[in-house]
C-alpha cells in the first residue's frame, strides 16, 4: 500500500496480544507522561498537557487498581483506530485505551495537520525506543481518504475504534472484518447541562467565575461542537437573577477567550432565523453581541437532539421536574454536566427511568475529560479477552 505514510512504526506490525495493564505497559505510559510533561511548550497546548496528566503514574495506577484482576486477561490482538479529524489529541487517547487493554494498534491519524500531533509523535518515538515490545505493536499512519486502504486495515483487525460520527461509523462498519472483530463505534451524540439556579445564587463571585471558566472549557473552547459539549441548558430552581449571574459570567469569560469567526457569527444568526421558522417551542432568542445566543424553549418536545448550535448558541429551558427530561431522552444522549446537583441522584434518575441515553454525569467543566469509560463503553474490558 504505497499511499500509506507510517508516521510511527511500519507495515510489519505484531498482532500478538499483551496482558491487560501489564507492568511493562503501565511503565511505558508513565514514561510517556514524563516525557510529555517535560516538553517545553506543553503549556501552549492544554490538550497535550491534559494527555500528559492523564498518563501520569498515579492515574494509571488508580485505573489498574479500579479495574480489578487482570491475571487472566489479554488484549484482543490488533486494534485499528479511525480518529476524528477535528480533535487533535483524541487519537492518542484511543490508542492508549487499546494499549492498556493489551492490544497492538494501527492508528489512522486525522487528515488535518495539527502541531499537537507532531509533538506527540516526536515524543512518542523517543519513548518507544526503550520499550521494543510496544514499539513493534504500534503504527500511526496517514493516508488520503481511500476506502481500499481502510479496508485492508479492517481485514487484519481484531478490534476497531471508529470515531468521527454517524457518517464515518456507517461507512467503516460497511467494510469487511474478521468474524470475531469487536467494534467500538463513537457515533454523533447529544449533550446537555443541568444547573441549579439556587446554587448559582449561593455561589460567590470567585466561584462563579470558576464555574464560567469550566463552562467555557466544555463549550466555546471546542466551538461547542464536541459530542460532549452541552447544547441544551436546563434550569432547576430557576430565576432571572440566577440566569443573569451565570450568563454574565460566562459572557465575560467567552469575550476574553473566544475568537469568534465571522463565518460562525453568520451561522449563528442564520440558525436563529431557522429556529424562528421551525421551532414551535421557541419563545425567543436573547443575543449578546454575536458571542452568546440563548434560544428559550417553552416546552421540551422532541426531537430535542436536533437542537444544536455551534460557537456559543444554547437552547434553554426551565425544567419543572426531571420526569420532563425522562420523556425526551433517546439513545443519542451522552453527557449530562451539572452544577449544584447530586450526581448520584442524577445517575439514579437514568437508572430508574431506564433511559436509553445519558452515559455520563459529570460536573460542569469535565465534559471533555475523556477516559477509559466513554460513550457507555468500558473500553479496556471490551478491548480485552478473558481466559475463563
Amino acid at each position, binding site marked *: 500500500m504505497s499511499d500509506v505514510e507510517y508516521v510511527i512504526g511500519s507495515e510489519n506490525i505484531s498482532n500478538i496480544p499483551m496482558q491487560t495493564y501489564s507492568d511493562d505497559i503501565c511503565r511505558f505510559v508513565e514514561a510517556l507522561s514524563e516525557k510529555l510533561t517535560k516538553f517545553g511548550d506543553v503549556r501552549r497546548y492544554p490538550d497535550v498537557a491534559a494527555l500528559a496528566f492523564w498518563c501520569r503514574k498515579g492515574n494509571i495506577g488508580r485505573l489498574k487498581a479500579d479495574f480489578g484482576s487482570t491475571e487472566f486477561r489479554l488484549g484482543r490482538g490488533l486494534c485499528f483506530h479511525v480518529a*476524528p*479529524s*477535528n*480533535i487533535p489529541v*483524541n487519537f492518542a487517547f484511543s490508542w492508549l485505551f487499546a494499549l492498556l487493554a493489551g492490544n497492538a494498534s494501527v492508528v489512522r491519524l486525522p487528515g488535518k495537520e495539527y502541531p499537537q500531533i507532531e509533538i506527540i509523535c516526536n515524543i512518542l518515538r523517543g519513548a518507544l525506543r526503550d520499550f521494543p515490545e510496544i514499539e513493534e505493536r504500534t503504527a500511526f499512519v496517514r493516508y488520503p481518504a481511500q476506502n481500499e486502504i481502510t479496508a485492508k486495515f479492517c481485514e487484519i483487525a481484531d478490534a476497531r475504534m471508529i*470515531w*468521527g*460520527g*454517524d*457518517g*464515518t461509523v456507517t461507512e467503516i462498519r460497511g467494510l469487511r472484518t474478521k468474524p470475531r472483530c469487536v467494534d467500538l463505534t*463513537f457515533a*454523533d451524540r447529544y449533550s446537555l447541562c443541568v444547573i441549579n439556579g439556587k446554587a448559582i445564587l449561593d455561589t460567590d463571585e470567585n466561584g462563579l467565575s470558576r464555574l464560567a471558566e469550566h463552562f467555557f472549557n466544555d463549550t466555546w473552547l*471546542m*466551538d*461547542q*461542537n*464536541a*459530542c460532549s*459539549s452541552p447544547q441544551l441548558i436546563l434550569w432547576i430552581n430557576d430565576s432571572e437573577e440566577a440566569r443573569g449571574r451565570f450568563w454574565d459570567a460566562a459572557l465575560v469569560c467567552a469575550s476574553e477567550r473566544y475568537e*469568534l*469567526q*465571522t*463565518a*460562525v*457569527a*453568520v*451561522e449563528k*444568526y*442564520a440558525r*436563529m*432565523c*431557522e*429556529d*424562528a*421558522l*421551525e421551532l414551535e417551542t*421557541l419563545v*425567543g*432568542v436573547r443575543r449578546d*453581541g*454575536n*458571542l452568546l445566543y440563548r434560544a428559550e424553549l417553552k416546552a421540551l418536545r422532541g426531537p430535542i437532539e*436536533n437542537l*444544536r448550535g*455551534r*460557537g456559543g448558541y444554547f437552547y434553554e429551558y426551565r425544567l419543572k421536574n426531571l420526569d420532563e427530561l425522562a420523556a425526551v431522552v433517546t439513545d443519542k444522549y451522552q453527557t449530562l454536566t451539572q452544577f449544584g446537583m447530586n450526581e448520584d441522584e442524577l445517575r439514579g434518575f437514568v437508572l430508574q427511568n431506564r433511559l436509553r441515553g445519558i452515559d455520563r454525569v459529570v460536573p460542569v467543566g469535565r465534559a471533555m475529560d475523556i477516559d477509559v469509560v466513554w460513550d457507555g463503553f468500558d473500553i479496556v474490558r471490551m478491548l480485552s479477552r478473558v481466559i475463563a
Partner: protein
Amino acid sequence: MLDYQKIFELPVFGMKRDEKDAFFRSALSELTDHHRDNCEAYRRITDVAGRDSPLPVRLFKEYELLSVPREAVIKTMTSSGTTGQAVSRIFLDRDTSARQSKALSKIVSQFIGKTRLPMLIVDSPAVLKDRNMFSARGAGILGFSMLGRDLTWALDENMEPDMTIIDNFSKKHEGENVLLFGFTFMIWQHFIQALVSREETLAFEGILVHGGGWKKMADQSVDNERFKQTVRDVTGIGRVCNYYGMVEQTGSIFMECEQGHLHASVFSDIRILDGQNFAPVEQKRGLIECASLLPTSYPGHRLLTEDEGELLGVDDCPCGRAGKYFRVYGRVKGAEIRGCSDTYERR
C-alpha cells in the same frame, strides 16, 4: 406600497447622505411592513430577530420565501450554484420583475450612456436554453441585453470564441462605441484566455461590463487590476466596469465607477457590519448588508450577505456620484470548527 413611479424619477446617484438615510429608513420600513403582512416566514423571523434585522441570504436556499400568492409568480430565478450546492430560489411577480429591469437600465445608463450600443455578449446562447429555471447567469444576460442593440453572442455552444462572428461584429461597428457584457470568470476563461492562446487581439472601442464574483479569479491570482489591463490589451476596450450584485437583489446592482469604486444607487444601500456584534462600522472590513427597494414579491429588501467589504466613503467620490461607495473583498472565510463529528449535518 412605495410610490415607485416617484422613486424612478429620482436622480440615480444624486441623493446625499442625510436625505438618503431618511428616505431609506422610511422606505425600508414600509417594505418591512409589506413583507411582514404578506410573508408568514418573514414575520416569524423578524418577530424573533427584531423588526429591522436583515435576512441571511442562505435562507433563500433553504426555504421558499414569497410575499405574493404563488399564482402571481411569473419567474423563478436561481443562483448559479455549483453542482451539489443548494441554490437560492427567488420568486418574481410581474411588478418586481419589471422594476428590476427598469432599475438596472437606470443604473447602467449612468455609466454607458442612454443610447443603446451594439452589444457583444461574451457567453454562449446555450445558457438561455432552459427557460423554466432562470439561472442568475441567464437572467443577468437577459436583463443587460435590454440595454444594447444588435445583440451578438461571442461564444459558441462549446464556450469557444467564434472568431467569424466576432470579426463580423467588429467590422460592422468599426469606429463605434460597443458594449461588451459577460460574467467575470466566463470572460476571463473562455474569451480573454482563449484569445491570448490564439494570439488574437481585437480593436474594440467602448465599455466592458462584467459581474459575478471573484472567487474563481482569485484562485488563479487574477485581481481587478490585472483583469482590466489584460482586457485592454487583448480587446482594445478602454473602460472596464465591474458590478456587484446578487440574484437575491437583481436589478439594484452596484456599479464600479471610473475610480474603481462600487456605488450604491438610489435603489440600494449598503452597510458594513462588524462580525463580532453586527454593529455598523464605517472604517473597517466587515460583512456586507445590502438593502434594495425593488423586491415586493419576496422578502429580499434587507439582506445579510456572506461577503466581506469595506466602506470607502459617502458622497465624496471624485467621480461625482453621491451616496456610499465601497469595495468588496469576496466571500467570508469558511469556518474552521473543532469538534468530534467529521461532518456536521444540518437538520
